[in-house]
């Protein structure tokens, strides 16, 4: 995903000299190509995320289109007020890119688990929140966020979800259905879609067919599709690699409750309002914290009383 983002950015920079990429001293080697091609459009601001965001805002005020980059929570939570006051209030063309969503950097410990970022970023006005599930979505999202007004948040995952329907069109706020079904509808963001795809296979063996929707944009949410699937399916399941409080599942619940498009049954899969102190890679921690394919399958079968 990260490589798709960078290649996408290179293709933009070839056409637009006002594109500026800032990193807060992370991204060893990966920006070499960008820097050598566009030396005046790349700056490493040092280990200084507050500055990263404010410098980006200053550049954007003067007409630059800026991408800031760092890992995990550093480009978001570490400089949240700069995002809110400087970038968002002034509605600037600043796109914040975090590599390592969820448990991507599982073994590095709690500091590197980006598990509340979706909830927190979507609470800020003037922010578009995009969580791609595969490299193609990451590449497309980079292009779309570059074009769109206001602040963008692009959360990249270490795991790449499978891109199944190669002829789909990517639009901010428009979800992509990657598999059709009749009983259960998964609404997913991020690379954790692979766990869902595997779960869907197991469910099929148990006689349950499922649709899988990549809800790559958490804000603005694709309400049209939610209105549709909430009627059609026995069970709607949100899946995200992050805290279930305030994230994708919450966004869906809010829409459904308020609009009256209430599914028969609804379930949120995600981190249950906790931190992890356990060492483990992404797959291990997904399993440990009940977000892996096996858990999802069992939970759905229980919910459907099968």
């Amino acid at each position, binding site marked *: 995903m990260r490589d798709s983002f960078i290649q996408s950015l290179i293709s933009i920079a070839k056409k637009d000299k006002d594109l*500026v990429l800032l990193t807060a001293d992370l991204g060893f080697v990966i920006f070499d190509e960008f820097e050598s091609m566009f030396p*005046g*459009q790349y*700056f490493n*601001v*040092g280990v*200084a995320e*507050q*500055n990263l965001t*404010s*410098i*980006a*805002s*200053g*550049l*954007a*005020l*003067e*007409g*630059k289109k800026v991408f800031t980059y760092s890992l995990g929570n550093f480009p978001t939570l570490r400089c949240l*007020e*700069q995002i809110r*006051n*400087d970038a968002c*209030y*002034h509605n600037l063309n600043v796109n914040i890119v975090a590599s390592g969503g969820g448990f991507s950097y599982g073994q590095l410990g709690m500091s590197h688990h980006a598990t509340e970022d979706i909830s927190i970023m979507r609470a800020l006005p003037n922010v578009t929140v995009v969580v791609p599930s595969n490299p193609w979505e990451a590449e497309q999202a980079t292009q779309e966020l570059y074009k769109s007004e206001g602040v963008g948040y692009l959360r990249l995952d270490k795991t790449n979800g499978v891109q199944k329907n190669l002829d789909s069109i990517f639009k901010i706020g428009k979800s992509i259905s990657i598999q059709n079904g009749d009983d259960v509808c998964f609404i997913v963001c991020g690379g954790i879609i692979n766990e869902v795809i595997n779960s869907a296979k197991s469910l099929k063996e148990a006689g349950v067919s499922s649709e899988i929707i990549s809800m790559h944009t958490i804000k603005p949410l694709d309400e049209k599709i939610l209105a549709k699937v909430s009627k059609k399916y026995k069970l709607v399941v949100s899946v995200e690699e992050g805290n279930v409080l305030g994230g994708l599942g919450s966004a869906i619940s809010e829409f459904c409750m308020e609009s009256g498009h209430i599914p028969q049954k609804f379930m949120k899969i995600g981190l249950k309002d906790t931190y992890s102190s356990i060492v483990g890679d992404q797959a291990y921690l997904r399993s440990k914290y009940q977000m892996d394919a096996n858990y999802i399958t069992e939970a759905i079968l229980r919910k459907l009383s099968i």
Partner: protein
Amino acid sequence: MIENELKLLANKIRRHAIKMTSIGGSSHVGSILSIADILAVLYGAVLNFKPNQPDWPDRDRFILSKGHAGAGVYAALAESGFFSVDILKTHYQNGSNLSGHVSHKGIPGVEFSTGSLGHGLPVTAGMALAAKIDKKNHHFFVLMSDGECNEGSNWEAIMFASHHRLNNLTAIIDRNMLQSIHSTEETLELEPFAEKWKSFGWDVIEVDGHHCKNLFDELTKDRISNNKPLCIIANTTKGKGVSFMENKVLWHYRSPKGDEFDNAIKELE
């Protein structure tokens, strides 16, 4: 530069500040009086701008980082022709755009909204960098408080600005020695303040922050050849111009009412 005119403008800003903080019952009058002369010199003689075209691309940029003194900027903008002086009466009132901390929305001439400290310098550094990239010649000024230098974000930007040789950037420090509860030195020692900035790669000048001519001279000296950002430490008195407000932390909070208001206005006549 006509010194008397600048003094007159500073006096108008002070009078507006007393009225605005009194009518709306807002705080920070002492902080505004502290920077009135700096604002007068900037808006009266230094900044290049067109009031009828606030977004003129070649204008100099001024950002108030100590956003709590926003009423001073509103007053300076009104006196400079950006909008009617009458609008100042709405400061801090329900439905107004003129919030207690400076906001750009609906107010021509305000470059950037602040209020939380430690944001102005980093943003101005980003703006100055953009001008460097585009080889533009306008200048960037940011006015900060001394207490604000407690914020670590400033020191990130101080390093950044010297590293990138942003000699189109001038940071003016309102060095009135007082912050929210006690003096700056009792709270979190800033001294040796000038040396700190110097050691971070900045040019540093100290000046009397109430002496319009000296301020003008330092703000307009051509330093573009030396490749360093400039820090002007303007030594000021909080509450300057109203005897009973001078050097009193109380006037960081209190708004002048009744006799206090009358006496303050009288002293500024």
